[in-house]
């Protein structure tokens, strides 16, 4: 029951976080989330920063270039977007740290089933990612150049795309076979 309440609170906070368009309340929300995290606040903040780094840098740079060319650059907008993404990511990490998602979704068999599928897929991907990382490290005799890094990243991207498509097909068939799509 507590897990379900936490899930509802989390969903409400996500909706609130996406509808507020002012830096002050978002910063206050972030401070509140980190306060709720207690002793884990630094760990959650660090993991969230690492998780969003690439996405936010790409978005910020793209926006910066285009808006500067159009003469409409706004620092406030950049801060707003980055703060919102950081708040929502911290909120999600806090939820995952504190609540067992399987308990939270226990009220619905379908949601539990979907979450189990997503979770098992993410675990498989995590292991594959580690294999790729270590295999690359194992084959590096000299410090690696930019071209090799690019090739390796491209290969990983293609592998995960292929794997996702294949697994999505398999999962859909498995679900259909078990009557999931039957009306």
């Amino acid at each position: 029951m507590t897990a379900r309440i936490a899930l509802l609170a989390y969903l409400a906070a996500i909706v609130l976080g996406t509808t507020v368009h002012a830096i002050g309340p978002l910063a206050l929300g972030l401070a509140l989330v980190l306060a709720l995290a207690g002793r884990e606040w630094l760990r959650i903040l660090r993991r969230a920063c690492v998780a969003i780094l690439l996405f936010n840098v790409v978005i910020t740079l793209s926006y910066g270039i285009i808006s500067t060319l159009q003469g409409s650059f706004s620092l406030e907008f950049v801060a707003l977007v980055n703060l919102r993404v950081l708040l929502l990511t911290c909120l999600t990490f806090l939820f995952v740290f504190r609540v067992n998602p399987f308990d939270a979704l226990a009220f619905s068999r379908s949601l539990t089933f979907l979450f189990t599928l997503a979770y098992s897929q993410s675990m498989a991907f995590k292991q594959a990612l580690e294999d790729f990382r270590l295999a690359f490290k194992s084959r590096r005799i000299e410090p690696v150049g930019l071209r090799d890094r690019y090739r390796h990243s491209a290969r990983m991207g293609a592998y995960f795309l292929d794997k996702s498509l294949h697994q999505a097909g398999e999962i859909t068939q498995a679900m259909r076979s078990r009557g999931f799509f039957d009306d």
Partner: protein
Amino acid sequence: MIELERVSYHYPESEPALKEVSFSVAQNEHVVLLGANGCGKTTLLRILNGLIFPQQGAYRYESEPVTPRRLRDKSWSRRFRSEVVLLFQHPEAMLFNPTVYDEIAYGLRQLGVDDLHGRVRCWADRLGVEQQLQRPPLHLSGGEKQKVCLAALLALEPQLLLLDEPTANLDPRSTGWLIDFLQDLRVTTVATTHNLSLAGELGDRVLVLSEEHELIFDGRMEDLLGDEEKLLAANLVHSHRHGSSRDKRFHVHDWS
């Protein structure tokens, strides 16, 4: 050649993967690391390849401790990475170059080998992938990918070849070919498998890891096969009820 002394390893927030494992391997030995799934075989190979480092105990290669600090020494790291190589269980993880040729040449280029072309041709020929040299590795079958990875590793002329479940993804014909190939190879090998019936083919000395992540046997295959208690403890065989219409009895069974 390599020595492990009371090596323990645990992944963050999980149970130990290895507990106080000690053994050594001499030059030109062919060692098989046998154990059920999840007993720590892959972790041990990754330690031997200097990819992860034990929290307790020591691992030495040619009497030198293999530590993050030692691997920061460029000349030693260069020597270690070219002499100790690992064939991953899933070859896809190792392949990222545009052609099979580039894949085999990858390590050789880093070493600045003079006769690069000759060495690539030679190993492609020995592994039977000479017809595939200009093809992208991703378009090959699972067995061919494995051969390309082996060619890329062996082209470096390593001292120690580590093989993680080398037959796990192969069909019977490719498995037979690989076993013959490895038996003719004059390189020290440490291969993992959970398949008791293949262990004797992959090496002449067997190390058994238990499901408690401890080394419980180090010896000859014949001696292991005579030790039913250890085989059962390591989950390498099962007591299995054989059912026929009249006769049902329990006996030891190799599921692999």
